[in-house]
């Protein structure tokens, strides 16, 4: 095999090479030896553009996003489909995600290993998209709690059959900046929404009670399919005191009503 003495290149050149590698090649390089791990850690801290996130859905893994494209390295317990591409529109922008899957009978253990390694390499992982349509929600939440209790942003995709698990999630994991809660949430569901998250988006907010809404201290709230027919944007913006209004703290509020 034709080889090149990589570590004898100037440091700035090594940095350049890293900036052209895929994140997964960098991770594999970090796993080659203690020395390469040290170098990767040093270089990676100078490249701030990597946006790392945990990926939990049917498969578990990690990924990184760059603008509207994302690349994910996930463990699966289903055979086949080693590679896949998923495209979708988010906020009128087309985003595309590339997946590389690795088969294992023990995807949770494999996930823990890769999470540990990435956390060691990159520091705390800022972002957590969590699709609760899996069998290990509580185990994953328990594990994440021991490793990293706080995430900057989180998108939770709720499974109707596992409502209790969403509350378990909010009890154990703190989301500081952006929280998105997606898809059909039963109307009578009592969700322990975190009150202090900076920006909150709820796709289907029929479950949300007025009392709960008023308790929120978020700076921005976007509610889809709300039941609050009596709300008017102007009403909120005018900070009418009759509402007793913690929402005064809220710089923007959008509610999209059921038609």
């Amino acid at each position, binding site marked *: *095999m034709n080889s090149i003495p990589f570590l004898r*290149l100037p440091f700035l050149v090594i940095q350049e090479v890293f900036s*052209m590698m895929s994140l997964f090649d960098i991770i594999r*390089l970090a796993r080659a030896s203690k*020395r390469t791990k040290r170098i990767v850690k040093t270089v990676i801290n100078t490249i701030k553009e990597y946006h790392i996130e945990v990926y939990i859905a049917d498969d578990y893994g990690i990924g990184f996003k760059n603008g509207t494209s994302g690349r994910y390295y996930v463990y699966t317990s289903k055979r086949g489909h080693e590679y896949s591409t998923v495209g979708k529109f988010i906020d009128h922008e087309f985003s595309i995600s590339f997946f590389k899957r690795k088969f294992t009978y023990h995807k949770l253990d494999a996930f823990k290993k890769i999470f540990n390694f990435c956390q060691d390499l990159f520091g705390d992982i800022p972002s957590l998209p969590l699709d609760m349509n899996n069998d290990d929600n509580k185990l994953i939440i328990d594990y994440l709690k021991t490793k990293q209790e706080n995430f900057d942003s989180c998108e939770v995709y709720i499974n109707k059959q596992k409502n209790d698990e969403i509350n378990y999630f909010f009890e154990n994991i703190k989301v500081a900046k952006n929280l998105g809660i997606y898809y059909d949430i039963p109307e009578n569901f009592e969700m322990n929404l975190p009150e202090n998250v900076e920006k909150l988006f709820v796709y289907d907010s029929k479950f949300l009670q007025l009392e709960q809404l008023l308790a929120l201290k978020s700076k921005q709230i976007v509610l889809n399919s709300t039941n609050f027919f009596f709300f008017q944007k102007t009403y909120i913006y005018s900070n009418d005191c009759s509402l007793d209004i913690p929402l005064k703290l809220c710089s923007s509020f959008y509610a999209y009503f059921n038609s």
Partner: protein
Amino acid sequence: MSVENAPVVDVDEAAIPVEKKMYYRFESNDKKEFRVSELAIQQSETLNRLVEAMGYTSEDVENKPAIAIENIDGKTLKLVFQWCEHHKGEAIPVDDGSVPKIVEIPEFDAKLMDIDNGLLFKLIWAADYLNIVQLLNVSCKKVANMAQGKTPAQLRRVYLLPSDEEDEAAKRAAQEAQDPRAREVEEEFEERKRQGGNSFF
């Protein structure tokens, strides 16, 4: 070898001053001489500043000795100047900070870099030293491509990475070279540990 006897390599015939084009003469550390057009030199920030500072006229170029580039050999410098001549007049790319950095390797560059990795290694050093941004980009991209999809064990072979044990051994050897007593002290320490002593002192 004297400068007069040194082989002169015309990198690009078109660069010879048919229309009184300005060109410069450079000499590698193994005394190979190159004539390179002024436009091609602009691809290298280092050389461009150098020739600007020297302020040579066409007569100076002919009458004065070639500009010596001490730490690059003729084989490497030939590749560098071939690349510069091919890409002369092209804009120098500006890093927009996107990660991963998207770099395409044009066909000419791919052929130019179809060389053994020892020479590629020298080419990268030269591109870095001469500050030729796009040549550095494409050569780094080639090195980055070597890692694609490789396992850690394969990467150790491709990038000649020492294993942890080899690194440890090298560290010990370096320490010993610095202080010959170090190994004796370490052995003594290990011996005391085996005997159950808690403290070395």
